[in-house]
C-alpha cells in the first residue's frame, strides 16, 4: 500500500511572542487541513511531538475532542522524522486511511541545555561544560576538515547559500542575505564554526496530512507520494553527540545507515534525487551530511560548493528554503518543515526559490541527539 501526502501546513518559524508553542502547532494543523480541503473531524489518527512546548496530544484542546488516536513522539531533533515514520507505518498497515503528523516548539533564546540524566549520562559531564550540541558539531567538523581537506571557504559558502535562499522564502525567519565577508568576519562561536554558521533554537509549527494513496484522489488533485520513511540509530563507533568517549575505529554514522535503507526501500539512488533537505544545524554539518547521505564523496564538497552545485539552480539543490540556518530550529517541527519544503518544490509552488526543470523526486534528512537520523523520499 502506498502513502500519499495530501496536505501541508506551516506556522511560520521564528518568534511568535503572542502564541504558545501548542498554538503554533494548531495553526500548522489548520493550515494543512485547509490545504487538503479536510477538517479536523476527518482525521483518524495523529502523531506529534515537541521538546519544550508540551505534550502534542493536548492539541485536541485547540482543535477539537474528536476521540482520534493521538500518539506523542519524542526523538530529539529527529522527532519530526520519527512522527512521519509512525504515520507512514499506520497507513501501510492498512489500519487507517487518513491522519495528521504535527510538530511544534517554542524554545528560549540561546543554546540548548540538555540534562545529562535524560541521555543516560552522569552529571559531571554537563557540570564541566561538555554537553553542548554546538561543541559536538564543531568537534566533528574540525576532524572532518582535517581528514578530507575541507577549508573555511566551504563553511562560509554553505551559510551564504542558506541566507540567500532564506531571502527568497516568505516563510523563513531570516530573510536577509549575508555576504561572504559578513559571514567570514562574524564572531567565532566554537572553532571552526562562527555565529552565522549556526542555526538558532526558535519557534514554529509544521503539519502534514497523510493518506492511503489509493484514496488520495478523493481528497486532492495534487497528491505527492511518501516513497519511504526510515529512521536509524547509531552504531558502536559512530562519532555522535553527547559521547564522553569514542571508540578507536570510527563506524558509519546513523545518517549513512538511514540513507542506505531509504534508498533501498525506494528502489532508487542518490542520482535520482532532484531536490533535497539535509540537516544543517550548522554549515559544517551540512557539508558532512552531503557525503553521509550518498550525494557526493567525502572531500568532494569543496569543489561542489565553489561551483554552486547546491544552490537553487545547481545540480543538487540543498535546503532551498534556507534550511535550519535561515529558519531556526523548533526541534519538534524542524523535520516536518523539511518535508513541507520538498512538497512545495515538487508541486512547483516555490516562487522565487523554485528549483527549475520540474523536480520530481525529493529527499529529506534529519539528525538528532544522541545519534539518530530520519530520511524520507517523496515523489510526484
Amino acid at each position, binding site marked *: 500500500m502506498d502513502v500519499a501526502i495530501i496536505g501541508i501546513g506551516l506556522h511560520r518559524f521564528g518568534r511568535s511572542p503572542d502564541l504558545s508553542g501548542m498554538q503554533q502547532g494548531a495553526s500548522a494543523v489548520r493550515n494543512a487541513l485547509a490545504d487538503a480541503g479536510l477538517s479536523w473531524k476527518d482525521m483518524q489518527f495523529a502523531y506529534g511531538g515537541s521538546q519544550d512546548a508540551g505534550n502534542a496530544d493536548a492539541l485536541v484542546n485547540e482543535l477539537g475532542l474528536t476521540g482520534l488516536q493521538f500518539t506523542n513522539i519524542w526523538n530529539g531533533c529527529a522527532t519530526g522524522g520519527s512522527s512521519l515514520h509512525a504515520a507512514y507505518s499506520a497507513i501501510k498497515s492498512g489500519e487507517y486511511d487518513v491522519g495528521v503528523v504535527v510538530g511544534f516548539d517554542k524554545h528560549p533564546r540561546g543554546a540548548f541545555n540538555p540534562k545529562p540524566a535524560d541521555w543516560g549520562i552522569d552529571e559531571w559531564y554537563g557540570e564541566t561544560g561538555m554537553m553542548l550540541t554546538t561543541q559536538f558539531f564543531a*568537534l566533528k567538523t574540525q576532524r572532518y576538515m582535517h581528514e578530507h581537506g575541507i577549508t573555511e571557504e566551504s563553511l562560509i559558502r554553505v551559510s551564504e547559500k542558506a541566507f540567500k535562499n532564506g531571502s527568497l522564502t516568505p516563510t523563513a525567519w531570516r530573510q536577509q542575505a549575508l555576504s561572504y565577508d559578513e559571514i567570514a568576519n562574524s564572531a567565532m562561536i566554537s572553532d571552526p564554526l562562527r555565529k552565522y554558521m549556526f542555526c538558532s533554537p526558535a519557534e514554529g509549527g509544521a503539519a502534514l496530512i497523510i493518506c492511503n494513496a489509493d484514496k488520495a484522489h478523493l481528497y486532492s488533485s495534487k497528491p505527492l507520494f511518501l516513497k519511504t520513511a526510515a529512521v536509524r540509530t547509531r552504531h*558502536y563507533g559512530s562519532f555522535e553527540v553527547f559521547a564522553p568517549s569514542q571508540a578507536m575505529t570510527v563506524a558509519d554514522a546513523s545518517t549513512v545507515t538511514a540513507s542506505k535503507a531509504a534508498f533501498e526501500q525506494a528502489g532508487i539512488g542518490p542520482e535520482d534525487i532532484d531536490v533535497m533537505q539535509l540537516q544543517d544545524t550548522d554549515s559544517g554539518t551540512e557539508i558532512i551530511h552531503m557525503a553521509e547521505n550518498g550525494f557526493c564523496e567525502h572531500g568532494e564538497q569543496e569543489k561542489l560548493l565553489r561551483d554552486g552545485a547546491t544552490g537553487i539552480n545547481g545540480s543538487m539543490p540543498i535546503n532551498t528554503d534556507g534550511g535550519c540556518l535561515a529558519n531556526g530550529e523548533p526541534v519538534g517541527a524542524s523535520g516536518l518543515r523539511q518535508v513541507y519544503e520538498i512538497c512545495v518544490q515538487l508541486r512547483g509552488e516555490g516562487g522565487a526559490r523554485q528549483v527549475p526543470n520540474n523536480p520530481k523526486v525529493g529527499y529529506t534528512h534529519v539528525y538528532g541527539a544522541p545519534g539518530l537520523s530520519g530520511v524520507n523520499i517523496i515523489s510526484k
Partner: protein
Amino acid sequence: MPNQVPIHEGLFTWPSAKPQLLGSRCVDCAETAFPAQPDCRNCGSRETKIVELGDRGTLWTWTIQTFMPKAPYNSDETAETFQPYGVGYVEMPGGVRIESRLLPNKPEDLQIGMPMQLDIIPFRTDENGDQIMTFRFSPVKEA
C-alpha cells in the same frame, strides 16, 4: 589545604601521585569504554573489568567553548569571570578517545595530533568548602 573530592567516583585514580583515567574493557571483545560501565556497548557482554587508560594521549579533534554554558554547567564562574576553554577528544593508549576540557583556549595553541597529558585540577569549590576535582588535558611540556 582544602579537602579535594573527585567530581565523580571512578573517573580517575585519586588520590594519586600519578593519576590515570579509568575505563572498562570488555572481557569478550576487548573494546574499551569511558567512563567505566558494567556492560559492553559493542558486543553486549556483561563482563567488563576496570582498566587504567594512561595519562598521556594525542589530540584527535578540538574546539573552543567561547560562551558560558547554561546549567547544568556548574563552575565557580560568573558571566563576568568566565574564561573560554578548550574541549577535545584525546586518543589514549588504553584504546579509546576521551572527551575532555583542554587547558589551551586559543586556536593557535591547539593542533590535531599534538601530544597531551592528563592533569587533575580543582574545578569548583562546593558548599562545604571542598575542592571538586576534575580531569583536563594540556599539551605535553618539553623536557
